[in-house]
C-alpha cells in the first residue's frame, strides 16, 4: 500500500471504507473482544430487549475507525489518538461507511500532524459514531 506523505495531504481530503456487518462478523468480533452480550448475535434475545434486530457492537465501529486511520497513516505513520461517541445503533446485516475528513494540517513538537473528523454512517446517511482523530505522517 502506498505510504501517505504529509506534504500531499490537503485539508478537506476525505477517506472512507464501506464494510458489511453480517452476524458472522459480529461473532468473530465477540471472540476478538470478549464482548459476548447477546444483543449482538442472538435474534430472539435482541428482540426481547426491544431492539429491531441484533446490533453492531459500538467497539467494533470504534476499531473500524482505527483501521481507516491505520491504513491512512501507513507503515511509517502513527495514530496519535482517536475518540468516537456511540450515538446511534446500527442494525446488523446493513453496510456501514467509516469515513474521515482532514480538518487541519500542521507541524507541532517536531511532528507532521493531521487532524480529522471521523465517523460511521448508515446506508441512509445517518451518522451514528461521530469523533475526531490526530495522525502523524512522514514528510518528504
Amino acid at each position, binding site marked *: 500500500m502506498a505510504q501517505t506523505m504529509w506534504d500531499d495531504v490537503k485539508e478537506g481530503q476525505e477517506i472512507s471504507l464501506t464494510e458489511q456487518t453480517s452476524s458472522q*462478523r459480529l461473532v*468473530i468480533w465477540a471472540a476478538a473482544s470478549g464482548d459476548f452480550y447477546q444483543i449482538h448475535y442472538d435474534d430472539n434475545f435482541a428482540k426481547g430487549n426491544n431492539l429491531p434486530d441484533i446490533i453492531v457492537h459500538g467497539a467494533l465501529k470504534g476499531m473500524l475507525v482505527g483501521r481507516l486511520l491505520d491504513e491512512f497513516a501507513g507503515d511509517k505513520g502513527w495514530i496519535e489518538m482517536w475518540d468516537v461517541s456511540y450515538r446511534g445503533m446500527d442494525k446488523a446485516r446493513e453496510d456501514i461507511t467509516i469515513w474521515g475528513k482532514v480538518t487541519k494540517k500542521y507541524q507541532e513538537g517536531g511532528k507532521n500532524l493531521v487532524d480529522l473528523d471521523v465517523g460511521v454512517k448508515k446506508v441512509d446517511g445517518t451518522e451514528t459514531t461521530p469523533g475526531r482523530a490526530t495522525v502523524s505522517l512522514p514528510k518528504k
Partner: protein
Amino acid sequence: MPEELPDLTPEMKAAIGKSGPPTTYEVTSLGIRTFGRAVGYKNPIYFDAAAAKAAGHKDLVAPPGYLGMPVFNPNATAGRGVDFETPFKRNLNGGTGVFPLERVYAGDVLDAVTTLVELKLDRGRLGQMLIRTSETVYTRKSDGKVVAKTRGTGLSY
C-alpha cells in the same frame, strides 16, 4: 424504569478519582489475528510474524487499539473498575478514545489500571442515565513502558 436519583450518592461521589486493581491482559498471536480478521485488516504485519519481522518489527504486531484480552479466571470476582451501588441495571457503551503510545506485540503482557474520572447524571431518550467516564493506562510488564491509554464512556439507565 429504575428509581430516579436526585443527585449522585455519597458512595458514587467518593468513587470519582479512584482506581481499580491492576488487571492482566495477554496479547497473543491468536488474539491479534482474530482482532485483525474481525476488523478487516489486510496488512500482513498483523497476521504473519515473518512479514512483521521483514518490515522491521520484533514479532507479530497488534493493530492499533488491540491491547489483548484480560486473563479469564472463572474463580475470580469480575470487575476491573471502581464499584458502587447503582439503581441503573442496563448498560450501553457510550464511546471509546484510544491514545496509542508504543507498538504492542504478540507475547506482550500488560497491566491495565482503570480510573473513574467523571460521573454524572443526565437525561436522554432512555430516561435518567448515569454517565461514567474512565481512563485506562496499559503498562507492558517486560519493560515498564506505558503502551497505550484509553478513555471509555459508559451509560447506565
